[in-house]
């Protein structure tokens, strides 16, 4: 069986190789290592399939003293998403950074930082230690900012600095929470903390601080201010990575903190608090869905539109906290509750997956358009459908998935969330989901409408786009659709631990 640590080791090794090598070898090495990481992630699948979860103690020191690595079905899913998007974005980047000399210089910095970021992301999915999570948050945060500012335009630098300050603030709030938690409980391991969690002012405040920090990093509604400028001003492959993967890492940690570390405070372990905090998060999520989508509709720059769409789509992820917060209040029989709890989990995980693929496809397609036309202004995109059919098709496919129309992965995600909302008797979330879908349709059709408008002057020359770039964008969009067609298989891939019990809270530790 493959060792879990490989998924962190290999990207780091690749980063070092890319840092030391020069010239054309950098991109080649990067792609080679990307493929190797994908292989290792796939290789981990059978172990998770049979055992449910795997735990490794690093350095041979058992949990309270040392740091453990912990992988379960949920983590595997995120690992796989990162690997798939990572490989395709890597192939795209090879074309993107070969454009000209200026991009070559960018590419030389892109590969080492991106591979370090990848290692950090994979580390987050294996993480089982609150302080280790802090260091990993910093690894991902600094590398994400480093990638954002690669293009060195004033806009990207200002956005990157704002991102850096927000990320530093968020991780410091998280660190304060870790300090309080350690002062109250005297240990740092997720599972051990979750087992003896008690309600006290200190643990409650720690919970609040950690969740707050992670919310800022995941850009939930009032804290989303840093996301649109950063994601829209970065180079195209970087935007794809940031929107599809980086925000998901802090969401993953939020799930872990919420369901594994603080089950006693979030109403997961029997005792239901008077006002479930999950309701609050769900409310913000719902607002984010509506507001982010509304803002997206109003944009006239393609990349900014897609970035606001990320704000909206991230909102869906937070509905799970609200959906599951009433599970014990309403659930009389375990069988009935289990049914829609599993649905909520499946919907959320599926949404992470479909949004990751679709958003990466959109940003890569936008990058192709920007390369061809020299701008990402929607007004300049007239009649692009006739002149760049493949890119238009990619935009349409990814858009269909975002909207949640039937043959796509996004449909499965939203359908599951919808059913969970109705089955748990919280119909108001269903309204939010449907409204969000309509707004999404509005901005997707806005993009497509521009591409079909006939243009007065056909003379504007299009710069040629390397086929590697077009095809990877298309591949991502198609993957999104295919995983929708074959929804049963993908759902079957979902972790076994999704039977309504708090994730990985039981077992695993020695």
């Amino acid at each position: 069986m493959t060792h879990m640590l490989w998924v962190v080791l290999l990207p780091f090794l690749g980063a070092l190789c890319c840092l030391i090598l020069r010239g054309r070898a950098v991109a080649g090495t990067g792609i080679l290592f990307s493929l190797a990481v994908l292989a290792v992630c796939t290789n981990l699948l059978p172990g998770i399939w049979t055992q449910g979860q795997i735990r490794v103690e690093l350095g041979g020191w058992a949990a309270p003293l040392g740091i453990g690595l912990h992988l379960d079905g949920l983590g595997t899913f995120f690992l796989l998403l990162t690997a798939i998007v990572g490989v395709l974005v890597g192939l795209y980047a090879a074309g993107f950074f070969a454009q000209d000399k200026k991009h070559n210089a960018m590419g030389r910095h892109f590969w080492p930082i991106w591979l370090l970021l990848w290692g950090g992301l994979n580390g987050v999915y294996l993480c089982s230690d609150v302080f280790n999570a802090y260091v990993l948050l910093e690894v991902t945060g600094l590398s994400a900012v480093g990638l954002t500012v690669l293009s060195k335009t004033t806009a990207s630098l200002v956005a990157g600095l704002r991102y850096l300050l927000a990320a530093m603030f968020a991780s410091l709030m998280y660190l304060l929470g870790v300090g309080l938690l350690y002062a109250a409980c005297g240990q740092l391991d997720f599972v051990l903390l979750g087992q003896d969690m008690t309600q006290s002012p200190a643990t409650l405040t720690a919970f609040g601080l950690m969740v707050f920090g992670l919310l800022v990093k995941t850009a939930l509604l009032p804290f989303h201010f840093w996301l649109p400028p950063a994601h829209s001003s970065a180079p195209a492959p970087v935007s794809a990575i940031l929107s599809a993967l980086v925000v998901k890492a802090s969401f993953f940690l939020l799930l872990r903190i919420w369901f594994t570390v603080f089950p006693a405070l979030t109403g997961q372990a029997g005792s239901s608090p008077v006002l479930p905090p999950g309701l609050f998060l769900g409310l913000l999520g719902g607002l984010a869905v509506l507001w982010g989508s509304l803002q997206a509709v109003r944009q006239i720059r393609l990349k900014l539109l897609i970035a606001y769409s990320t704000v909206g789509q991230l909102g869906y992820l937070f509905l799970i906290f609200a959906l599951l917060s009433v599970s014990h209040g309403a659930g009389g029989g375990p069988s009935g509750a289990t049914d829609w709890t599993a649905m909520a989990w499946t919907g959320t995980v599926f949404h992470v997956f479909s949004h990751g693929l679709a958003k990466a496809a959109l940003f890569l397609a936008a990058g192709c358009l920007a390369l061809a036309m020299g701008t990402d202004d929607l007004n300049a995109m007239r009649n692009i459908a006739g002149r760049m059919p493949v890119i238009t098709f990619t935009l349409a496919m990814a858009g269909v998935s975002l909207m949640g129309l039937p043959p796509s992965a996004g449909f499965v995600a939203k359908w599951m969330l919808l059913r969970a909302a109705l089955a748990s008797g919280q119909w108001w979330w269903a309204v939010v989901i449907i409204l969000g879908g309509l707004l999404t349709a509005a901005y997707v059709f806005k993009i497509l409408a521009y591409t079909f408008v006939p243009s007065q002057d056909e003379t504007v020359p299009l710069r040629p786009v390397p086929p590697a770039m077009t095809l990877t964008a298309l591949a991502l969009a198609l993957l999104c659709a295919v995983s929708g067609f074959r929804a049963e298989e993908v759902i079957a891939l979902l972790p076994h631990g999704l039977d309504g019990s708090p994730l990985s809270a039981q077992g695993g530790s020695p």
Partner: protein
Amino acid sequence: MTTFHLYSFAAMLLAALGVYGLITRRHLLRKVMALNIIAGGAFLLLISTAYRNQGAFPDPVPHAMVLTGIVVAISATGFALALIQRIQKQLGQRPDQEAGDENPDQTETSRSGP
């Protein structure tokens, strides 16, 4: 009032002060300083927690955590300051640069923003 409570109170006040500075101060350098003050508060909390152990020596785990935190803080601060310098340089050159230098960048960002 034990030493631990005294210092952890101070830590929390420092952190709150830093957050206030971060929100209300507009100058970027001061924001960076405010972040460092929050970090100082977080570190002080951890170190005073370690000091609670009235045995032979303080708890080394928070000490190690703070050392790691200091490295992270200086890294992020250095990066932020370098970014501020670069932004200042490009804003200072703005009137000249917008016409010529930024054209190759249009693939990433269009200047005809909203």
